[in-house]
């Protein structure tokens, strides 16, 4: 088996790779996982560990965006909606866990009793079961994206129109959440979760376990999407991105190809949102409107949308930079963040992964100058 498969995206990549080169990727993956699970929990205080878990939630969202946007060419500017669906599903379970253990609550969350509701609404009842909440957090975003995607891709809505549609969806979702205050908690969102499955969410032990769970989920999503993009379907997706009409002419239906990628990206966003609630202890409309949705895509642009690892790294990097900047310069850190965006986009249009790739290509071509003549 010779790996002569060079990507159409990076002509600089060498066509032939050594055995060591082929094993480097998996070795790094295992190494990063070992550091994440073995080293970080030992050296970071619980608060910092929790922050890393938060970054990884956005990395999971980023992996989905890399599939839909990087591979499928769909500019998904409304991932906040799916992030929110996952987050609220999990948040509803956590809210009910508190309510059921608090005899003073009268069986309903406080924001409902303020609105004069004394009996738990039908919509909320299934979420008393964690399995229902988790399944909803993963499947509902997928279902919504599948229906929406199928409807719009069939009509050949694409490009800027699809991006605008997604933005409008995010705006509408936020308005819906705020208006339905008696069901959603309004602008305050859902918060005040003392426990997860009976364990205090604010103990160092629980935080460590939550972190481990987030790392494992992120790794699983990465591996799963890696299989997807390397499969025949992944090739078809790229073909649709680069020439939808040509693919249609060849007898494939681009509608379902795109719908599937959109659905996968929505499910990833839902998973990220559900984990985010557990990590941060809050989900509010301001975390999933137009601006947060843009930031999710921007992070992927910075990391490199054509690479799964790049997308995940972009999310981690951007959020870590936000923390670092805002802690060092409490006033004015947003300028630094803006400057970082501009620098990366101007000097590395394919993101950080693009830089890494070019560097690796350059290094290889120096070692075997004749190999780079592809």
């Amino acid at each position, binding site marked *: 088996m010779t790996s002569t498969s060079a990507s159409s995206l990076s002509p600089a990549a060498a066509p032939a790779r050594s055995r060591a080169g082929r094993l480097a990727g998996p070795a790094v993956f295992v190494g990063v996982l070992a550091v994440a699970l073995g080293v970080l929990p030992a050296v970071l205080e619980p608060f910092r560990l929790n922050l890393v878990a938060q*970054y990884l939630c956005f990395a999971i969202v980023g992996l989905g965006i890399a599939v839909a946007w990087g591979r499928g060419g769909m500019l998904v500017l409304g991932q906040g909606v799916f992030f929110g669906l996952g987050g609220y599903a999990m948040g509803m379970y956590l809210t009910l866990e508190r309510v059921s253990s608090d005899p003073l609550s009268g069986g309903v969350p406080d924001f409902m009793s303020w609105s004069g509701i004394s009996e738990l609404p039908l919509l909320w009842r299934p979420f008393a079961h964690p399995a229902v909440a988790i399944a909803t957090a993963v499947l509902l975003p997928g279902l919504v994206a599948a229906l929406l995607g199928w409807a719009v891709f069939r009509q050949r809505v694409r490009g800027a129109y699809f991006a605008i549609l997604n933005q409008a969806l995010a705006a509408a979702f936020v308005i819906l959440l705020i208006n339905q205050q008696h069901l959603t908690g309004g602008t305050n969102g859902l918060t005040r979760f003392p426990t997860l499955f009976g364990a205090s969410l604010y103990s160092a032990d629980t935080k460590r376990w939550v972190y481990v769970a987030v790392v494992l989920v992120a790794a699983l999503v990465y591996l799963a999407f890696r299989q997807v993009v390397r499969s025949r379907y992944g090739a078809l997706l790229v073909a649709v991105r680069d020439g939808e009409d040509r693919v249609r002419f060849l007898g494939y239906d681009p509608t379902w190809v795109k719908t599937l990628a959109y659905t996968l990206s929505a499910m990833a966003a839902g998973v990220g949102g559900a984990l985010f609630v557990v990590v941060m202890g809050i989900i509010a409309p301001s975390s999933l409107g137009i601006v947060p949705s843009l930031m999710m895509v921007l992070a992927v642009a910075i990391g490199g949308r054509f*690479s799964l690892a790049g997308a995940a790294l972009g999310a981690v990097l951007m959020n870590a930079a936000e923390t670092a900047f805002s*802690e060092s310069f409490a006033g004015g850190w947003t300028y630094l963040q803006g400057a970082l965006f501009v620098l990366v986009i101007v000097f590395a249009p394919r993101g950080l992964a693009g830089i890494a790739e070019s560097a690796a290509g350059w290094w290889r071509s120096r070692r075997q100058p004749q190999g780079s003549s592809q």
Partner: protein
Amino acid sequence: MITVRRGGVAVSLLAAAALMLSGCSGGTADDSEDTVKVGMLHSLSGTMAISEVTVRDAVKLAIDEINADGGVLGRQIEPIEEDGASEPAVFAEKAEKLLQSDGVATVFGGWTSASRQAMLPVFEGNNGLLWYPVQYEGLESSPNIVYTGATTNQQIIPALDYLREQGYTKLYLVGSDYVFPRTANQIITAYAKAHDMEIVAEEYTPLGHTEYSTIANAIASSDADAVFNTLNGDSNVSFFQQLRSAGVGPEDVPVLSVSVAEEEVGGIGTDNIAGHLVAWNYYQTTDTPANAEFVAAFQEAYGEDRVTSDPMQSAYNAVYLWKAAVEKAGSFEVDAVREALDGITLDAPEGTITIDGATQHVYKIARIGQIGEDGLITEVWNSGEPIKPDPYLEGYDWAADL
């Protein structure tokens, strides 16, 4: 076939690991002998920054004054400042950072209800102590928060009493769409029912909304004799401008606002709002010796053109109340400070205030003010005695159903 490029993976994942490690700046709860760390957590960026920065300035002024005066229990206060970025989730994150990573003795911060509710579980989970300086919707009493602004029975209900005394019986309710206006309007509706007043309409607009001509015209053509305004932030600018354009002046239908203070009057434009009413517990013009000193000190520190407002004053008081509680307890420990809270009094700019230990709210005088041509607010009515805080409105029969 498409492959993920391994070189890229390797480099980027290594970079990620390096970055995570570098993210862990060492901030341990180191109790050095001559300083005590406190947190300041306000929105310095985002939509709320314009309001919250004024509160931050007031907190900083109090800290500087106390430090110049020898500190607390012989220790200088070392403020650690974080930006809540007008985002509830960021408030929760930064609160956790201050409590766990910096090990602060207490935190001063928050403005919106959303930010307070986001921080609440963090303070309860880590047994911290938050001083929250803004009037709010009540229905809360956390052992880990001290509320130095008014609760509803110290602002909304006195405002209704005032309107009723003045003979206004038909109210038009306008508010931003979030928990404070909605809760306030529920209280207003229950009050109206019990006191033979009529609610003509109840309108909500999203935060940041700027199109009010429809509502302004509806007010002009309705038979309402007063407007109760719970709009927040920028919306007030458009609302008052468009109300004036619709020909509604303070002599026809006065608007009583509960979220418009001295700081906002300048932005709205004095022309648009002069003559209308507001309800607070403090104005820059409040005539007490402590206020004369506070206003002078504030303007000396930040400029002659700066105004002082109720939330700023409540935040300024919070630092002094905390100092008094720490000195009474003889300790910076949260549990000891909480024990010491009950009965702490302070000669504040708004008059003598006292902490009610049971609710961790503050006894306050309610004041109705009228906005003048100079942009300052003059008191036209006050409650005389400081009102006992009653966040759950347990002392009001008509509020039993809320």
